[in-house]
């Protein structure tokens, strides 16, 4: 009890500190009962690329179960040897970037104690990316404690979202962080290659000391800065109601800012990437504006976008609360020249995607390890919507000489490589290729199908309701299901049972057309209600609804003129339909189309002959 009293007293003091800081320094969201708040004081040694820090955690047990031990994530230990789970699973390669054994990463914790001085013993488990410490007295429901520790961390050469390259520092997953206590256990897994993160909301007060001349950016807002005679500087950041804290530093950073409503957007870019500035800020403005309108307002007053050097792309394309990283990353694997020229629109897509995570990860903080589709899928669905609004239908990702590959095309293509996988599942249960299907592409196509089946307005009402209900919380798939069923008011089992949990696939086709009859078929195990459009010789059209439960269905119209044209799912609402080419059938080839095709090709060949011939 004495321990708990002291912890509670410290908690009260810390709460007072946070409450003093938050309203006066930043106008963030209304506090959603923070669980784990951190005060961090860290020094970066730019020579050894090492961090030395002191950490104070103020924790509130908001569950009904007593906590008898603490579990910390020590993510940087994933990069300390080739034997870690992360490096064994990934083969030392993450998103095309290789782990450098000459520059490993690690973290060590020293002197962990409760605020009354009671020492705790921290023991590493698994591969050292988790550690636990037994509390002398269990923390009962509603009680608080404060724990302090010192740590030393070696940053790896940039790999898997964190590290250094020359004078560039991307400091992510860098401090001992508590897991999430829920349902009577710590929800914390070793750091797996496909997995991302899961943490409680809290307030972060972070003081960083590093050499003068370095420009910094971080989760939250800078609230103080000072210089020391020894050539160092100290910057202090504060962020309220966030699930993580990341920061960057580089002396070569330039700053570009734009105000989007009440949000201050800061883009930290490198001089060689000056060409990105307008494109990144335009995309940020579009993303913040539209996501705010679609789902609900961005709850923070600031967003920092960070550029990464060409040789540190492993740090790019990552989301943290109030801070995202971009850079010249191509989702198609093309060169920087293709991105710069605008042929490859990956820059816009990556920025839009990472900003989308501010809604679907940072605020609606689903478990990225256990249900990755809930954050990556929702975010990429938002990205697809954004790309469509910014650049046209489907969102072009590649545009070469008028030949366009859309973001939707790309997702359909990737989905078709492994369509039998369910979306639900823990991240590390899939290979890297499968993970991209289950976490990204299948959810995007599934959510797009849901949107097209229910209507955009209903879909947005669902998303708004889901966001409003679960912001600053940790919803699950079943929570989303409940919202969908409430708002849509209809059975969407095909979505949850069929696509989320199920492994079925679907391909609708018009398989034959004879006079007054047409045969449509469903191939694959999944069925989704759809529409058939039948056109008759006199130009009249009928629309039929089909639940798709039978594998074959015959539509006959003996009293009408012969059928000339039939289409199943004519508007391509079912984005998970594996092949759209066979959705439409005609009784005869249309001459006008053939002539148009021939004319098109003749001209193109004339053009090539002129270009290659020299004489003509």
């Amino acid at each position, binding site marked *: 009890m004495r321990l708990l009293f002291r912890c509670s007293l410290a908690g009260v003091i810390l709460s007072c500190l946070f409450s003093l800081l938050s309203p006066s320094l930043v106008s963030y969201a209304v506090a959603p009962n923070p669980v784990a708040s951190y005060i961090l004081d860290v020094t970066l040694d730019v020579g050894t690329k090492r961090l030395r820090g002191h950490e104070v955690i103020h924790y509130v047990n908001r569950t009904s179960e007593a906590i008898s031990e603490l579990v910390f994530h020590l993510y940087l230990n994933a990069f300390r040897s080739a034997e870690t789970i992360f490096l064994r699973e990934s083969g030392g390669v993450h998103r095309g970037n290789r782990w450098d054994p000459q520059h490993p990463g690690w973290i060590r914790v020293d002197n962990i104690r409760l605020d009354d001085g009671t020492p705790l013993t921290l023991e590493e488990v698994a591969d050292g990316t988790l550690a636990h410490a037994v509390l002398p007295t269990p923390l009962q429901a509603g009680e608080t404690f404060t724990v302090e520790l010192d740590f030393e961390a070696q940053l790896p050469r940039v790999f898997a979202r964190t590290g250094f390259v020359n004078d560039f520092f991307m400091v992510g997953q860098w401090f001992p962080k508590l897991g999430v206590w829920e349902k009577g256990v710590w929800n914390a897994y070793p750091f797996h290659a496909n997995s991302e993160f899961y943490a409680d909301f809290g307030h972060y007060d972070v003081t960083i000391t590093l050499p003068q001349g370095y420009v910094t950016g971080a989760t939250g807002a800078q609230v103080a800065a000072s210089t020391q005679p020894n050539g160092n500087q100290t910057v202090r950041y504060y962020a309220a109601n966030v699930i993580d804290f990341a920061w960057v530093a580089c002396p070569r950073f330039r700053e570009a800012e734009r105000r989007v409503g009440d949000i201050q957007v800061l883009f930290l870019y490198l001089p*060689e990437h*000056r*060409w990105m500035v307008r494109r990144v800020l335009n995309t940020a403005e579009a993303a913040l504006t539209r996501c705010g309108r679609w789902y609900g307002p961005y709850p923070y007053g600031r967003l920092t976008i960070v550029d990464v050097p060409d040789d540190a792309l492993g740090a790019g394309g990552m989301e943290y609360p109030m801070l995202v990283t971009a850079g010249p990353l191509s989702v198609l694997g093309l*060169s*920087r*020249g293709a991105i*710069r020229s605008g042929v490859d629109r990956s820059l816009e897509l990556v920025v839009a995607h990472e900003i989308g995570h501010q809604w679907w990860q940072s605020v609606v903080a689903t478990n990225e390890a256990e249900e990755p589709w809930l954050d990556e899928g929702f975010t990429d669905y938002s990205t697809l919507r954004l790309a469509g609004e910014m650049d046209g239908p489907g969102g072009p990702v590649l545009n*070469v000489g*008028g*030949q*366009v*590959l859309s973001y939707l*095309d790309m997702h*359909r*293509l990737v989905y*078709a*490589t492994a*369509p039998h996988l369910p979306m639900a599942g823990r991240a590390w249960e899939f290979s890297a290729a499968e993970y991209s299907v289950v976490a990204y592409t299948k959810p995007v196509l599934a959510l797009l199908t849901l949107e097209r089946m229910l209507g955009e307005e209903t879909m947005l009402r669902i998303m708004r309701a889901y966001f409003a209900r679960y912001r600053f919380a940790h919803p699950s798939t079943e929570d989303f299901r409940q919202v969908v069923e409430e708002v849509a008011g209809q059975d969407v089992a095909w979505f949850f049972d069929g696509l989320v949990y199920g492994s079925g*696939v679907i*391909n609708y*086709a018009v*398989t034959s057309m004879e006079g007054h009859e047409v045969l449509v*078929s469903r*191939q*694959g195990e999944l069925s989704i209600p759809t529409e058939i459009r039948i056109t008759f010789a006199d130009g009249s059209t009928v629309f039929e609804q089909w639940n798709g439960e039978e594998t074959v269905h015959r539509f006959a119209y003996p009293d009408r003129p012969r059928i000339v044209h039939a289409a199943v799912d004519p508007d391509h609402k079912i984005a998970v339909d*594996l*092949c*759209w*080419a*066979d*959705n*439409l*059938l*005609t009784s*005869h*080839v249309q001459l*006008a*189309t*053939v002539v*148009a*095709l*021939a*004319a*098109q*090709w*003749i*001209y*193109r*060949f*004339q*053009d*090539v*002959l*002129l*270009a*290659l*011939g*020299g*004489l*003509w």
Partner: protein
Amino acid sequence: MVSGWRALHSGWVRLLRYPGVFGLLFSLNLVSATLLALPLALLMVSVLGRWPLLIQQAAHGSTLRVVLELVLAGLASLALGTGSSAADTAYALSLTLLGGLIVAVLLPLMAWLPAAFLGGGVLLTYAEWPNSPHWRRFVWGCWRWFGLFLLVGFVQGLGFVLVVGPFLLIGFGVYVAVGWPGWIGVGLAVLLGGVWQIWCELMRAASVVYKRCSLGYALGAAWQFIRQRPLSITLCFGVPFAMLLFLHLLHRWIWLPAASSTGWWVAWLYLQLSVAVRLAARLWRLASGVALVQGESGLSLPGQEN
């Protein structure tokens, strides 16, 4: 000696004097393109006619989408099994793409061989201005310089690959790594490419004007022209090049978008007009080159018989 302006004027007169040459080349271009396009279109219609979605996409010029649908149909048939309609679609699309590949191989041959063959006849006709057009002489000219022009074409291609290409690559690389300085490399490549193109065209013109069939002679004669009359040559070739560029820009940015919004036959007529105008600009350049070389006949050329 004639000035660049006079050569241009003379070239224009020669172009108008021999409309048959223009008509022949335009017809051949149209027929060659039709011979390539029609079988492919018919193949696509015959195997994909049941699924008009793909034909519509191809007709709109979305080749990438057709390829994408092929890949999707193939992947779908793997996921669904061979009995699915996606398998039929994939098979039909494969046939179409195979046809497309065959055409892609034939296309350069259909461009280079006729151009190399007809070059002699075209240049000889312009060189014999103001005589009346004589088709027998035309065919003789075609045959006389066919071998040399094939060789010149090969050397020209080699020059582009070995000299112009690296500058383009370096320029692009610098653009990617550093930015605008890369355009210097690209600019140099364009300049070198232009000079090399002019050199090769002068080689052909000199061979026909001086009735020679030697690559060495043609190279030397063309180089001597370039060295001695750089300004006239720049003007003589620069104006038609600039006009061609201007026509391309008009075509891509103004006419083509406007034509796209009309019916297919209006667009078709417009596109033919566009091909005709560009072809005329090229022939003007060739005729002007011949006029320039003829005007230089007072110069001492290697091996020239006076």
